[in-house]
């Protein structure tokens, strides 16, 4: 088959001073992606992110499976945040199939999604620590994360990929005595992450490496359409749990963490503050949750949508707003599923943040974007 190169694929001629450097996809500092940087001495003059090394065609697969069998594979983009990445799909499927969710299931979902948010952020924090050369910050979050993973295992039966949310509620009710164990573990967890301030966030070396690097102004954060911790670190007060509350978030008191600096330090601190907020939300939800009741509305076999219909649902995941656009044509399978993922949306900020930075600052800027390559590629 004859193939002509699209415009833009032609080779670029660059200055003799300027060297092109491929960071990744095998380099551990870039995750599963390649960042093509052009450097002049120590300074980055241009950056071209090249994702796609872990593209698995989740959206295409979703067109061949029915609304229930889509669940296990749609959580694969971010297995550490698997409840949150599935959440908008489940909300959208409920609207298309016309299912009501029991009250208790909504609280269970909120607890599970907040626990998952903490699990994801701890994993991200471990990576962020190790790429800044701070080995303690790799060990501590990786270890403390186990507390919450054990909780999720008690709740869902699986440590990482839970497949717990289904249209109509959650798969299983909470095990007996879960509330007490959860409260105890979350309280200990919160006490524990507060200790990270002394070793990491107040560490002068960390501050010197991240302060004023990769500054994203408020206007640019809005213009690039960034989301989540990147947006809130640039001074935009936007959290979907407050702005467009889904399930029972409107009954809970959620505080949005905002910082004005917009540098790597602010972007790395916001997720840590979010974890403490998650602990607050979990405690509130445990208190307000109905003590008994159904957690799942039974579905008919092979549920179908009604006629041509489309729905766009979004939730606040560990990285930011995660949207799911589902088009249904009245069959058992969705006609089209599109995941609009926060990593992909934040990626556009990377070339603009790295331009003019030193090459040595690349890890601190790149990982502060809260970027998960597998999610961006889907």
């Amino acid at each position, binding site marked *: *088959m004859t*193939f*002509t190169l*699209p*415009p*833009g*694929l032609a080779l670029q001629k660059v200055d003799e001073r300027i060297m092109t450097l491929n960071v990744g996809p095998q380099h551990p500092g870039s995750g599963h992606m390649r960042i093509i940087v052009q450097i002049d001495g120590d300074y980055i003059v241009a950056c071209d992110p090249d*994702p*796609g090394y872990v*593209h698995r*065609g989740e*959206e*295409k*697969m979703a067109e*061949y499976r029915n609304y229930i069998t889509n669940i296990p594979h749609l959580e694969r983009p971010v297995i550490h945040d698997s409840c949150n990445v599935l959440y908008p799909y489940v909300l959208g499927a409920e609207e298309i199939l016309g299912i009501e969710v029991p009250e208790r299931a909504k609280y269970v979902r909120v607890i599970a999604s907040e626990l998952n948010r903490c699990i994801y952020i701890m994993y991200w924090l471990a990576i962020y620590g190790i790429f800044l050369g701070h080995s303690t910050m790799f060990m501590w979050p990786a270890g403390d994360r186990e507390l919450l993973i054990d909780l999720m295992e008690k709740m869902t039966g699986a440590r990482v990929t839970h497949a717990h949310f289904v249209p109509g509620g959650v798969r299983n009710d909470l095990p007996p005595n879960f509330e007490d164990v959860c409260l105890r573990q979350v309280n200990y967890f919160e006490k524990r992450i507060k200790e990270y301030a002394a070793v990491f966030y107040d560490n002068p070396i960390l501050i010197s490496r991240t302060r004023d690097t990769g500054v994203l102004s408020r206007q640019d954060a*809005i*213009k*690039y*359409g960034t989301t989540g911790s990147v*947006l809130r670190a640039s001074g*935009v007060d*936007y959290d979907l749990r407050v*702005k*467009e509350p889904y399930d029972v978030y409107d009954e809970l008191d959620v505080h949005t963490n905002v910082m004005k600096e917009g540098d790597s330090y602010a972007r790395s601190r916001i997720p840590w503050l979010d974890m403490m907020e998650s602990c607050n939300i979990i405690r509130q939800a445990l208190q307000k949750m109905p003590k008994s009741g159904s957690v799942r509305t039974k579905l008919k076999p092979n549920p179908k949508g009604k006629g*041509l219909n*489309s729905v*766009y649902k*979004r939730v606040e995941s560990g990285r930011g*707003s995660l*949207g799911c*656009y589902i*088009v249904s*044509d*009245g*069959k058992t399978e969705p*006609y*089209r599923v*599109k995941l*609009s993922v926060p990593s*992909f*949306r934040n*990626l*556009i900020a990377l070339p603009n943040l790295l331009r003019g930075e030193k090459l040595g600052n690349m890890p601190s800027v790149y990982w502060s974007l809260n970027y998960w390559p597998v999610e961006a*590629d*889907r």
Partner: protein
Amino acid sequence: MSTETENPPADAKPEVATPKPAAKKPEETPIELPAFEKSISDKIVEKFGDKVEVGFVKEDRVRINVGRENVHDVAEFIRDELNYDHVESVSGVDYPQDNEIEVVYHLGSYSDSSLARQILVLATRAQRETNPIPGNDATKLPTLRDVFYSVEFHEREVFEMFGVFFEGHPDNRRLLLPEDWADLPPLRKDFAIKGR
């Protein structure tokens, strides 16, 4: 909306032609439309008249269907007058039975707090060409990159997954697929998964 259907794709599988999500017609209006959302759609209809078509007005969601020749003007109006400032998602949807590819922009606003819950769905359709390689006969749409900067990577993704060439986009390269991908754009309906 284009209604030409005399060139059905030669290699379209018969089973993908059976679903009939036809071009959106103005559906029966519910008795009570949400007032704020209705005011947004009214402003657009007032400005553009019958060039635009209101797909639906639901709670927090307004859908506007517009032809490809007017999508740029409508987007500029939405940005300048209605304060939508970024794009949340750009999705392509393939309708081989209509011989069209729909591109759906989900627009949101950070700077206007009254719009924080709102998503404006701007949908446009392009004539679906069977030759997916961008050339003279490619499926083409005007880019919105100069209106909303944030569509840059999203439009690159739609370009490679659906073969929709965005005219005026500064960087029309592949993003997720390999550079030497020489098959159909994979999210088109006639790209079949083996064994399914």
